[in-house]
């Protein structure tokens, strides 16, 4: 059985008036059928470029990509029929209603009389009462749901979601993940890019991390977390941390996190806090989460690409 998605030595260079930009640098990656795969990386790492090559929105400068074994260039029609992509940008055609939009999109894929499936998708995404509404009348969240529906009209075996929950309320996130998880259980392969690492940790069995166009981590999510192997000391404070601790802490608002490899290090951190006169609340010791792993890998402190890391 061919991989659901395969990239082989894919590079992409943009040439512009201000010089050249190497967006992707020799990326190889395979995703097996039925996987729920996460593609993570900071802004500008090349995630969207990689997905765009898969969907035929841009052409690779070198290397090949396939969807369900179909080359995205040589056999583009079969590749695109196998793929449903939810773009990151909130775009829509202002001339049509939701149902018209979905019927038209079905037609492009040669799918006729698709109303039963369209109704099911609309219901699953909480759009049933908006079917007759013009796209212009919908809120941002509703438009986002239509984008998801549009990607699914032709029942593609491979679904790609490019930051689908950016700026989306809790209700849609839950609706969306319930539906996507159902499709994944039914055998659809899902490739997800997101900035919400807790989402990736909860949903994706395997993860690749991109940095400056290269894969810097590729492993099972559990292995990535296990590899972090450290505990985290978390607390809230309104005080300024002593310089020695501040340099090593990850601070989000009032919450500070410090890595500790063993009990001795925890003790040392606490002693430093006491000596600095820092008042702490809600102190807890927990395991590192994906965000810790992400920060560690992106800072270059650790590489996590297994030698035979391309296989599922």
């Amino acid at each position, binding site marked *: 059985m061919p991989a659901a998605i395969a990239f082989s030595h894919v590079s992409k260079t*943009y040439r512009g008036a201000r010089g050249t930009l190497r967006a992707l640098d020799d990326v190889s990656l395979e995703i097996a059928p039925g996987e729920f795969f996460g593609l993570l990386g900071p802004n500008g790492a090349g995630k969207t470029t990689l997905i765009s090559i898969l*969907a*035929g*929105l*841009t*052409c690779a400068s070198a290397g090949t990509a396939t969807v369900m074994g179909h080359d995205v260039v040589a056999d*583009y*029609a*079969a590749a*695109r*029929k196998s*793929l449903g*992509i939810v*773009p990151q*940008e909130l*775009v*829509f*055609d*202002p*001339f*049509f209603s939701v149902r*018209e939009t979905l019927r*038209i*999109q*079905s*037609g*492009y*894929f*040669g799918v006729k009389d698709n109303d039963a499936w369209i109704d099911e998708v609309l219901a699953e995404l909480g759009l049933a009462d908006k079917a007759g509404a013009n796209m212009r009348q919908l809120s941002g969240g509703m438009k986002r749901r239509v984008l998801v529906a*549009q990607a699914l009209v032709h029942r593609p075996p491979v679904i790609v979601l490019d930051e689908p929950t950016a700026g989306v309320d809790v209700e849609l996130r839950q609706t969306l993940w319930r539906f996507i998880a159902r499709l994944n259980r039914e055998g659809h392969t899902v490739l997800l890019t997101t900035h919400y690492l807790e989402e990736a940790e909860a949903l994706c069995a395997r993860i690749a991390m991109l940095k400056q166009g290269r894969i810097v981590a590729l492993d099972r999510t559990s292995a990535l977390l296990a590899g972090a192997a450290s505990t985290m000391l978390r607390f809230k404070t309104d005080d300024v941390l002593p310089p020695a601790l501040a340099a090593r802490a990850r601070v989000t608002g009032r919450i500070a996190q410090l890595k500790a490899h063993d009990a001795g290090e925890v003790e040392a951190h606490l002693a430093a806090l006491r000596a600095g006169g820092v008042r702490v609340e809600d102190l807890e010791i927990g395991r590192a989460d994906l965000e810790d792993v992400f920060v560690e890998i992106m800072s270059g402190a650790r590489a996590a690409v297994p030698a035979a890391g391309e296989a599922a």
Partner: protein
Amino acid sequence: MMRLEGALPLWRKEVLRFWKVAFQTVAAPVLTALLYLLIFGHVLEDHVQVFPGVGYTSFLIPGLVMMSVLQNAFANSSSSLIQSKITGNLVFLLVTPLSPAAWYLAYVGAAVVRGLAVGSGVLLVTVWFAPPGVAEPGWIVVFALLGAGILGTFGLIAGLWAEKFDQLAAFQNFIIMPMTFLSGVFYSVHSLPAFWQGVSHLNPFFYMIDGFRRGFFGVSDVSPWLSLAVVATSFVVVAAIALRLLATSYKIRP
């Protein structure tokens, strides 16, 4: 083999797109043509006779009809594409298995429908003023279809090439408009000095309008067969260019 799957739904969408705003895309150009007829017809009716026995207003009607066909066919494919590019919803087409031939047929097919819809509208509202008669209807149909096809194709090329609305406007105002106006819509090229007659004969739009007019009056500046040869050749050339641009995803898949 040419794969045309999806062409019909895309064509239908493109037709619906202009039909939903028909007031702007059909009624407005019909009104513009009517104003041309009223003003030029009124001013020139007693001063100009182009063909023997044919009043100027009658002479003007087929020219205005054809000009409307050409301009609206161009406007349809070009504005649809540039809008999709600028708003970003072209992505919905780019991710589909539509072949270059399917893109071409759908966009140009819809442009032909818009051109013919406006042209019929212009004919319908102007014919009451001075019925031009119908001498050889076959030429009317052939040149209307080919003219709309060529300009629909031009619109497709311009829509692919342009990155901004003002680039498209430049294409329209500096190429399409002069070529239509200087093709004999408002006059017979025989009334021009020899040099400008020669220049007019290099303009393919001249043959579209001259051949089209032949269908109404049975008289033309040049043989309709020559016009057909020039127009058909032009169609093949621009269609080949457009298909090539689509096949290489010119400016749409960077």
